[in-house]
C-alpha cells in the first residue's frame, strides 16, 4: 500500500508546532461577552432565594441568568446517540444544586473584571441538604440526589431515581455457581478505581454568535458536533434547525469533550441577548465541574483448575456517576464486557451484575477506556493473583487461557473474534522486557528493588449497531479531492489518517486530499469521535465513498472517450480505454469536464454502521524500581505491543500508545480526586492533581503485532482507548512482585507502598 501503513506527517502539524491561531480561544471575536458560571459551594442544596439586582448594577454587565430563566425540560449533557442511555436529569440551571461546583447562575459582561465582580455580588440563600458522599451507601439511601418528578430515563437501563440508581443490569452465560463449585480454586477480590480527570491541556471552552440567518452558531472544543447540536437545542428548548455546531482544532479531549460541559452556557447568553459570547473554564473549573472517569468498586470471583485453566468469572461492579448520569449506564457495561472475554478459551460461564449510583459528587463522564480501564484493573489483577496462588508464571497462565481467532466469546455480546494477535503481543512483549530474567524481582543491593508486572487489555472499535461513520468525497478542479467528515480530530490525527485512506483508494498523493470537518451544516452525519470508532467506522465510510467516486470518474472518462465504462480503468491519474490503450483522458480533463454540462455525480457520501465492534488487543509490561526505605516508586521501562489490526499510520498509532500509557501511569501512581467531608474537591489544580511529567514515565517502547480485521478499512481496528488500560494492573503486579503486597485500590502511592497491609488496616478507603 502506498499511503496506508505509512508514517505520514499530520496535515495540521506545521500549523500546530508554529503556534498558529487555530483553537476556539484564538478564533473567537475578542469583543464577545465574557461568560462565567457561579458554582455551588454546597454538595446538596436548594436555592431558597437568589438576588442578582446588585450584581446587575456592576458597569459592563449584560445579563445574569438563574434557574428562573431557563426551560424546565430535563436533558443530558452526554454526547450519545438519541435516545441517549444517560437519563434526562439536568436543567441548564436548577434550583436544586447537587454537587459542590454545580451551576447556580450564568453571568455575561463586557470584561472579565466586571463578570468576576458580579459573581461575588450575587446573593444566594441556600437550604443546605444532607449529601451522599460515599457511593457505597448511595443505593436506597434516604437522601435522594434526584427526587424530582420530571427526571426521565429514555432507555430501559434499570434506572430508578427514587433509589439513587442511574442503571442496573445482570447478565450471564452458563451456570456460574455450578462451574465455580467445581473449580479447584476460587478467588474473590474487590478492587477500587478512582475518579480521574482527563486533564487535557486545553480546558473546556465555547464561543457562540448569531449568524446572518438568525441561527445560533456554536464554535466549540468538542468531540461531538452533531450530539452537541441536539443537546444545545434540548437545553434551550429551541428547534435543532436553529443551531449549527462546528469545531476548530481541539486541544485534547480524551472523552472529556464527549459531554457538553460548557456549550449550553454561552449558548444561553447568545440566544437571549443576540450577542456573541465566550466561556472558558479555568483549570480549577475543569477539575471540579468537568466530566471525569467513573469511580468503580469491582468485586470479582475467578474459578480455575490446578493446571491453570480459567473456567469462570463472576463480577459485580458498583459505579459512581456522581450528581448526574452522563455516560453512567454505558461505561459500567465495559467493565465486564471488555475484560472478561480476554480469558475466553476455557471459559464455561460468566455472570456480570452492576449498579450505577447517584451521589452528590462531581458528575462523571467519558474518559478514554470508558469502564474497560476499571474492569481490566480488576480482571488483570485477579489473574495475577491467581498466578501467584497457583505458583504459575503469569505469562504462561495467560497463554493457556487467551482468547483467539475463531472464538465467539459470550461475554463479548457473542460477537466473533475475527482478528486477534494477542498471543504474539504477549510473547513479543515478554521477550523485549526480558521477562524470564527479570520476573519477579531483583534486589539491587542499594535499598532498592526492581520488579516487573504484566497486564493485557482489549477495547472495542465503535459501538456495534449504534454508531455511524460518515464521509463525503468531492472531485474538484485539477483533480484534487475534498473530504468532508463529521468526526472530530482532537489531536489524534483522524483528518490525516482518513486522507491517507482516501489517497489509497483514489491512488493519489495525500496532499491531493483536503479535509474539512466537523460542521453540522456541511458534514455528513457522524456520531462523533468517541468509542474508538473513527478509524474503523469513518474509515470504512471514506473507503466506500471513494470507491463510488472512482466509478463516476470512469463514467465521465468513458463519456469523453466515447467508450463503454466497463472497458475503462483508472490509475489515479488517467482514465484509459482497456481495449484501446491509446485512448485516454487525464484526471485533470475529467475534473474540468465535470464542471461543464456534466450529467454525472462528482460528490459521494457514504454512511456506515457495524454489527460488530472488533476488539484491538494489547500486552503491557512494566519494570519499576521501589525504594524500600521510602516507598518511592519510579517507572523504569514500559514495553507494549498492540494489535490494532492494520496500522494506518505507524507514527500516530505509536504516539497514541505512548500517550495512553503515560496517562495510565498517572492513574496508577498518583492521579486521584478526593473530597472534603463537605463534598469539595481537594485536587482542584495541577498543584494537587499531578499528571506525569517527562521525568515520571520511564522509557516507553511500543511495537505492533498486526492482525487483519475483515470488517475494517484495510484490515484496521482501533487504537485510541485501549492504550490506557494496562498500566494500572501491570504496576500493581510489579509492586506485589517487589513487596509481596497486593494493592487493590488506586492510586498506588509511596505511602501505601511503604505501609503495605498496614495502610489498609489503619485507613478507611
Amino acid at each position, binding site marked *: 500500500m502506498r499511503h496506508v501503513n505509512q508514517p505520514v506527517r499530520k496535515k495540521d502539524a506545521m500549523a500546530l508546532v508554529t503556534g498558529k491561531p487555530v483553537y476556539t480561544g484564538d478564533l473567537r471575536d475578542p469583543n464577545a461577552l465574557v461568560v462565567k458560571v457561579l458554582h455551588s459551594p454546597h454538595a446538596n442544596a436548594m436555592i431558597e432565594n437568589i438576588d442578582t439586582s446588585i450584581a446587575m448594577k456592576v458597569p459592563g454587565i449584560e445579563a445574569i441568568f438563574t434557574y428562573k430563566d431557563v426551560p424546565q425540560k430535563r436533558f443530558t449533557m452526554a454526547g450519545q446517540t438519541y435516545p441517549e442511555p444517560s437519563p434526562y436529569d439536568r436543567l441548564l440551571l436548577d434550583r436544586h444544586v447537587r454537587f459542590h461546583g454545580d451551576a447556580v447562575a450564568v453571568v455575561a459582561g463586557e470584561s472579565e473584571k466586571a463578570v468576576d465582580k458580579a459573581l461575588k455580588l450575587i446573593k444566594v440563600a441556600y437550604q443546605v441538604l444532607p449529601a451522599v458522599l460515599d457511593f457505597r451507601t448511595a443505593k436506597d439511601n434516604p437522601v435522594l440526589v434526584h427526587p424530582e418528578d420530571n427526571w426521565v430515563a429514555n432507555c430501559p437501563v434499570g434506572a430508578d431515581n427514587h433509589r439513587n440508581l442511574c442503571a442496573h443490569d445482570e447478565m450471564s452465560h452458563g451456570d456460574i455457581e455450578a462451574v465455580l463449585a467445581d473449580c479447584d480454586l476460587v478467588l474473590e477480590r474487590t478492587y477500587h478505581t478512582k475518579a480521574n480527570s482527563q486533564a487535557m491541556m486545553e480546558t473546556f471552552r465555547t464561543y457562540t454568535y448569531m449568524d446572518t440567518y438568525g441561527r445560533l452558531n456554536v464554535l466549540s472544543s468538542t468531540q461531538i458536533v452533531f450530539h452537541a447540536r441536539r443537546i444545545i437545542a434540548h437545553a434551550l428548548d429551541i428547534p435543532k434547525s436553529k443551531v449549527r455546531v462546528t469545531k476548530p482544532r481541539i486541544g485534547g479531549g480524551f472523552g472529556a469533550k464527549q459531554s457538553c460541559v460548557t456549550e449550553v452556557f454561552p449558548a444561553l447568553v447568545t440566544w437571549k441577548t443576540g450577542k456573541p459570547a465566550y466561556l472558558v473554564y479555568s483549570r480549577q473549573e475543569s477539575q471540579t465541574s468537568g466530566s471525569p472517569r467513573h469511580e468503580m468498586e469491582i468485586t470479582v470471583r475467578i474459578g480455575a483448575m490446578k493446571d491453570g485453566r480459567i473456567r469462570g468469572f463472576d463480577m459485580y461492579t458498583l459505579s459512581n456517576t456522581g450528581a448526574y448520569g452522563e455516560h453512567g449506564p454505558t461505561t459500567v457495561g465495559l467493565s465486564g464486557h471488555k475484560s472478561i472475554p480476554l480469558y475466553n478459551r476455557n471459559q464455561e460461564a460468566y455472570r456480570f451484575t452492576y449498579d450505577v449510583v447517584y451521589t452528590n459528587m462531581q458528575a462523571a463522564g467519558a474518559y478514554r477506556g470508558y469502564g474497560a480501564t476499571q474492569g481490566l484493573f480488576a480482571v488483570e489483577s485477579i489473574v495475577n493473583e491467581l498466578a501467584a496462588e497457583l505458583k504459575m508464571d503469569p505469562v504462561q497462565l495467560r497463554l493457556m487461557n487467551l482468547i483467539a481467532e475463531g472464538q465467539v466469546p459470550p461475554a463479548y455480546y457473542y460477537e466473533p473474534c475475527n482478528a486477534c494477535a494477542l498471543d504474539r503481543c504477549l510473547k513479543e512483549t515478554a521477550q523485549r522486557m526480558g521477562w524470564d530474567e527479570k520476573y519477579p524481582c531483583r534486589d539491587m543491593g542499594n535499598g532498592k528493588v526492581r520488579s516487573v508486572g504484566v497486564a493485557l487489555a482489549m477495547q472495542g472499535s465503535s459501538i456495534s449497531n449504534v454508531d455511524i461513520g460518515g464521509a463525503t468525497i468531492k472531485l474538484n478542479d485539477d483533480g484534487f479531492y475534498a473530504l468532508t467528515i463529521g468526526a472530530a480530530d482532537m489531536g489524534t490525527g483522524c483528518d490525516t489518517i482518513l486522507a491517507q485512506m482516501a489517497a489509497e483508494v483514489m491512488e493519489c498523493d495525500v496532499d491531493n486530499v483536503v479535509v474539512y470537518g466537523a460542521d453540522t451544516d456541511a458534514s455528513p452525519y457522524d456520531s462523533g469521535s468517541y468509542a474508538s470508532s473513527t478509524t474503523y467506522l469513518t474509515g470504512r465510510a471514506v473507503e466506500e465513498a471513494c470507491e463510488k467516486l472512482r466509478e463516476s470518474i470512469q463514467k465521465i472518462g468513458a463519456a469523453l472517450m466515447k467508450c463503454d465504462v466497463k472497458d475503462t480503468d483508472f490509475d489515479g491519474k488517467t482514465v484509459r480505454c482497456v481495449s484501446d490503450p491509446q485512448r485516454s483522458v487525464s484526471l485533470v480533463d475529467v475534473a474540468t469536464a465535470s464542471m461543464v454540462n456534466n450529467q454525472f455525480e462528482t460528490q459521494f457520501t457514504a454512511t456506515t454502521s457495524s454489527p460488530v465492534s472488533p476488539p484491538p488487543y494489547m500486552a503491557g509490561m512494566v519494570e519499576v524500581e521501589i525504594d524500600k526505605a521510602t516507598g518511592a516508586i519510579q517507572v523504569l521501562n514500559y514495553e507494549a505491543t498492540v494489535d490494532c489490526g492494520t496500522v494506518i499510520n505507524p507514527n500516530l498509532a505509536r504516539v497514541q500508545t505512548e500517550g495512553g500509557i503515560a496517562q495510565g501511569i498517572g492513574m496508577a501512581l498518583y492521579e486521584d480526586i478526593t473530597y472534603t467531608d463537605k463534598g469539595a474537591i481537594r485536587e482542584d*489544580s495541577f498543584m494537587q492533581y499531578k499528571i506525569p511529567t517527562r521525568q515520571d514515565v520511564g522509557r516507553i517502547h511500543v511495537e505492533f503485532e498486526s492482525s487483519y480485521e475483515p470488517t475494517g478499512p484495510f484490515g484496521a481496528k482501533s487504537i485510541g482507548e485501549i492504550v490506557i488500560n494496562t498500566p494500572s494492573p501491570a504496576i500493581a503486579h510489579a509492586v506485589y512482585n517487589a513487596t509481596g503486597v497486593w494493592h487493590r485500590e488506586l492510586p498506588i502511592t509511596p505511602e501505601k507502598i511503604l505501609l503495605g497491609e498496614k495502610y489498609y488496616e489503619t485507613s478507611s478507603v
Partner: protein
Amino acid sequence: MELKFELNGKKIATVVEADSLLLDVLRSLGCASVKRGCESSNCGLCTVFVDDKPVLSCSVLAARVAGRKVTTLEGLQEEAADFGAFIADQGAEQCGFCNPGLMMNAIAMFRENPHPSEEEILSYLSGNLCRCSGYEGQLRGIQSYLAFKDAQKKGEV
C-alpha cells in the same frame, strides 16, 4: 498604565492594568501562540522569552516587562518551523496545545546547551506538560533535530 516594551522586534506602546498578566497582554496583542493551561504555574504552556530568558507569562506582571524585550513563538517562526518539523515527523505534536510552550523552552535549551544529554533534556523540559504524547515522540524529535544540526555543522547534510 502605559506600557512600552519590545515585542518580537517591534516597539509596542499599550495600556494595561497594574495587575494585568503578561500572558493576557500578549494574547490581546495578537500573540495567540501563548496559551494558558493552568492557573498555578505548573504546565509551561505560556512560556515566552523576556530578554531571551524563558519565563512563564502567567506568572509575570505585564508591568515588569517595561523597556524589556519579549519574544513569543510568533517572533521565532523560522526556528519553530525548523525544529517543529522534527516533532511533526514523529507525530508528536498531537493536539498541539502545549506545543508553543514546548517550542519556546526547547529553543531556549538549544541556545543554552547545544548538546544536551537525554537526562538534561528531560530535566530542562520537565516543566512543559503534555497530556497527549507520553513525551517519547517529543524526545525522539528533539534528538533527531540535534543529530541533524550536528550533521549540518559538519557539512554532512
